[in-house]
């Protein structure tokens, strides 16, 4: 499956390549990144399984996660995309596309996440039509909650997932 490339003012969103794996593994071994996503840094072996999953998700479902490349530096600075991972949550959102994002601490605070998520929401509307979308965020992750709000998401439930508190947010079609 050819993963589409999306360009924004400052970013390029493209599929992961085999050469991305060291940067991918380094990002997921960073406790600042995993503090609000998953809760613990990943070993190289676990990062590899996660990396393989991204390619499998695209192949199976025709959508998934992109690598985010900063145009100015040409560096991979994070990832964002749309997921269906059959999460066991209550309330359940199993049939609703879920959006997610994660950026390296070095580029936090520049508005990159908002820029990438808005671009992905545009792609999603072309791909799925006007549909409801969700995201889950740790209640202490204030920067990500602000990204979600700027992109039109609103809280609709608070629950736990794998023993951690989460907020589920939704974005209703315009």
């Amino acid at each position, binding site marked *: 499956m050819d993963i589409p490339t999306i360009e924004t003012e400052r970013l390029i969103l493209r599929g992961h390549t085999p050469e991305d794996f060291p940067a991918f593994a380094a990002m997921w071994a960073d406790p600042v990144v995993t503090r609000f996503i998953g809760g613990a840094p990943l070993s190289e072996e676990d990062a590899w399984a996660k990396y393989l999953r991204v*390619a*499998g998700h695209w*192949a*199976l*479902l025709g959508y998934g996660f992109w690598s985010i490349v900063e145009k100015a530096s040409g560096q991979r600075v994070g990832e964002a995309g749309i997921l269906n991972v059959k999460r066991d949550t209550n309330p359940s959102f199993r049939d609703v596309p879920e959006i997610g994002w994660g950026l390296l601490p070095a580029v936090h605070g520049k508005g990159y996440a908002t820029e990438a998520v808005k671009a992905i929401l545009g792609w999603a509307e072309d791909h799925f039509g006007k549909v409801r979308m969700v995201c889950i965020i740790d209640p202490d992750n204030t920067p990500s909650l602000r990204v979600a709000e700027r992109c039109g998401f609103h809280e609709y439930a608070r629950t736990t997932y794998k023993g951690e508190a989460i907020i589920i947010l939704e974005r209703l079609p315009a």
Partner: protein
Amino acid sequence: MVPPILETQRLILRALARADFPFYAAQRADPVVMKYIGKGDLLSEEEAWLRFQSMLGHWSLMGYGTWAVEEKFGGKYVGSIGFANKMRPKEHPASGAPEMGWSLGASAHGKGYATEGVAAALAWGREFFGAGARAVCVISTGNDASIRVAEKSGFRQFATATRYGLGRLVFEREL
């Protein structure tokens, strides 16, 4: 990379498809199948879905991977067989070589399917990795059925390992 289709006397090895997932998930929730896999824990549907995606993604990224095993007569999905790079730590005796794995649903046990499918995968692997390349497999201590499959398939045990506090036997062979 689209996985090639391999045919044996009784089996077809082909790409995993979305329609296989319910059968895969059912096997990952069956204590008979899971007894010697990982910690022996049953997988939730969510956990099974992540593994299923990884198996598919392995083909796209590495050009080799795990096939769905289908019974020729009736077309039923009975399990999976293939090669993986598991990115094991360098100190693990199975590190650095393509690792074979196989897993069949309980109703397909005891028929020689694993040995039959592994032979077809090994023949493909000889072409892909090159004759003489080393392949490995890792089997839980006590999993006598799989140990027999490995031995019949030309693997020799050369090391042991521990995972989750449980014993593992590590096998190798030349392709």
